[in-house]
């Protein structure tokens, strides 16, 4: 049908959202270029879910500008919602209905024309790999199948933009990888994706660009590797020892101006690219996005 839209899939500028005395989102800027996968990476309570809700106008921003596929929100949110798919963090499938019935409902809610409904449902069953479970009640599905259905449901109208709110939270590693493959397939088809997550590996593997949020604000933006190089350098040095030894090393490194992070059993010294001979002795390993995340948000990974 060829509706054309100018600019990025999503654009947020200076977005603020308050709940009483709490400021959940505090001047967030965010861009999702068309056709790219952007990760919204942040600890719990950083404002990720609130941001996701604002993109569907289920929360209304107090300040700032939100544009989704060219439509300003909340004024034209309905149009924007018609053109995007949403995978919620909390499963809200109709559990007493079958897999197929769930899809029929959403084909109607997303206004898939009557003539294409059948084909749309078959396509989603194929994507979600649920063809042979079409008549199973959602109640009878495993956690992984339910998630696949939840993602598939968001694709019923072939959206060019999909929001994924913590798509793999609480799932087994194996199921998670299965879902990553599914998300990667969307990405390769050129669907724009915004994915909130607090799994570093998920962002590292799937995202072209990552926006790290802390306390409702973007603290770093860029491709994962670039963020690592910029903030953590090429290599990190892990120092092991007694708690006293770690505290001592931490103070030492701080005095020399090297950022460090605690990893529980060790401290990692970062940004050592220009350290020359001043790099401490210890176990060398490549720096990663987790280092950047902890460094910038001050949060430990659980």
């Amino acid at each position, binding site marked *: 049908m060829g509706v054309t839209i100018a600019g990025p899939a999503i654009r947020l500028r200076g977005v603020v959202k308050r709940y009483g005395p709490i400021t959940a989102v505090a001047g967030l800027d965010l861009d999702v270029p068309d056709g790219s996968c952007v990760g919204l990476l942040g600890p719990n309570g950083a404002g990720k879910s609130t941001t996701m809700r604002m993109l569907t106008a289920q929360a209304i921003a107090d300040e700032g500008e939100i544009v989704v596929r060219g439509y300003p929100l909340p004024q034209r949110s*309905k149009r924007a919602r018609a053109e995007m798919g949403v995978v919620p963090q909390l499963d809200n499938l109709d559990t007493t*209905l079958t897999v197929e019935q769930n899809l029929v409902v959403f084909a109607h809610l997303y206004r898939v024309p009557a003539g294409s409904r059948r084909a749309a449902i078959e396509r989603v069953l194929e994507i979600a790999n649920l063809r042979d479970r079409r008549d199973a009640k959602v109640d009878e599905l495993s956690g992984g199948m339910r998630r696949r259905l939840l993602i598939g449901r968001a694709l019923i109208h072939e*959206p060019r933009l999909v929001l994924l709110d913590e798509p793999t939270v609480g799932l087994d590693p194996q199921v998670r990888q299965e879902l990553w493959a599914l998300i990667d397939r969307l990405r390769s088809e050129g669907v724009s994706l915004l994915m909130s997550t607090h799994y570093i590996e998920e962002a590292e593997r799937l995202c072209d660009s990552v926006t790290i949020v802390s306390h409702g604000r973007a603290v770093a933006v860029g491709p994962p590797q670039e963020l690592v190089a910029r903030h953590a350098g090429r290599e990190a040095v892990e120092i092991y020892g007694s708690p006293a030894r770690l505290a001592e090393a931490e103070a030492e490194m701080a005095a020399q101006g090297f950022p460090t992070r605690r990893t529980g059993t060790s401290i990692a010294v970062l940004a050592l690219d220009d350290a020359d001979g001043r790099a401490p002795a210890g176990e060398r390993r490549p720096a990663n996005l987790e280092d950047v995340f902890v460094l910038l948000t001050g949060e430990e990974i659980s």
Partner: protein
Amino acid sequence: MATEALTTTAPARAPRRLDRAAIGGVLVREIINFSSYWRSTTFSSTVEPTIYLLAFGFGFGSLLSTVNGYRYVEYVGTGTVATAVLFSSVFPAMFGTFVKYKFQRTYDAILAAPVDTEELVTGEALWLAMRAAVYGCAPMLVAMVFGLKASWGMLLVPPINFIAGFGWACAGISIAGRLKGIENFNYVTSAVITPLFLLAGTFFPIAGLPRWMQVIAEINPLFHCVQLVRHAVFDLLGPVDLWNLGYLLAFGVLMWRLGIVFMQRKLID
């Protein structure tokens, strides 16, 4: 806006307010769900009025042969049509709304789609009104088994039920939109619904009640529904029924808007 090419398969027409497709989507969801639980709902909606009829019809019927000139079984049989409408709309609306909002998070999913709160509430209320229109006829049909004579006016009962059911459904949605916890529903049921259910001229005429109770009955939309149904069934429709009908319509519109406002507050942060 047509500067950069970014194609989409979305419909070219911009969605409007109270869009038929959106309301239809909400209805489709309810209809498909209904296919999985219609047996139990239909059972209780038919058995309950039958029990009322048997208990009151034979119980009181043995004490008084006629009320206001009707055989008592006919009086109760027509009166409980309104009861059935009330019960099959206000309670599913209260509990259904709360469950779908809070426990199943269905409304989160629906509002992420191109559906607004206004359309959501309208769709839910229309569905319950349709159900109430049908289930409301059960007591009348049961009464026919016990001797209520068929009349052309009976054909007006489903549309009357629909209008009243829409209002009660919206009232139930409004209540669910206001209350914080599902346990608070008990207060509403005991303090509001039960008195309204009894003070409606269903089982006894309100003329014999103290003045203040009569006033409550006159305010009670259920009373107007009872009047309309009786007048329709007994071919007694007159000018006063324009007032009854107008009252039900006004009740429906008021509750509809109220339900939308309350749910909007609840669903949109």
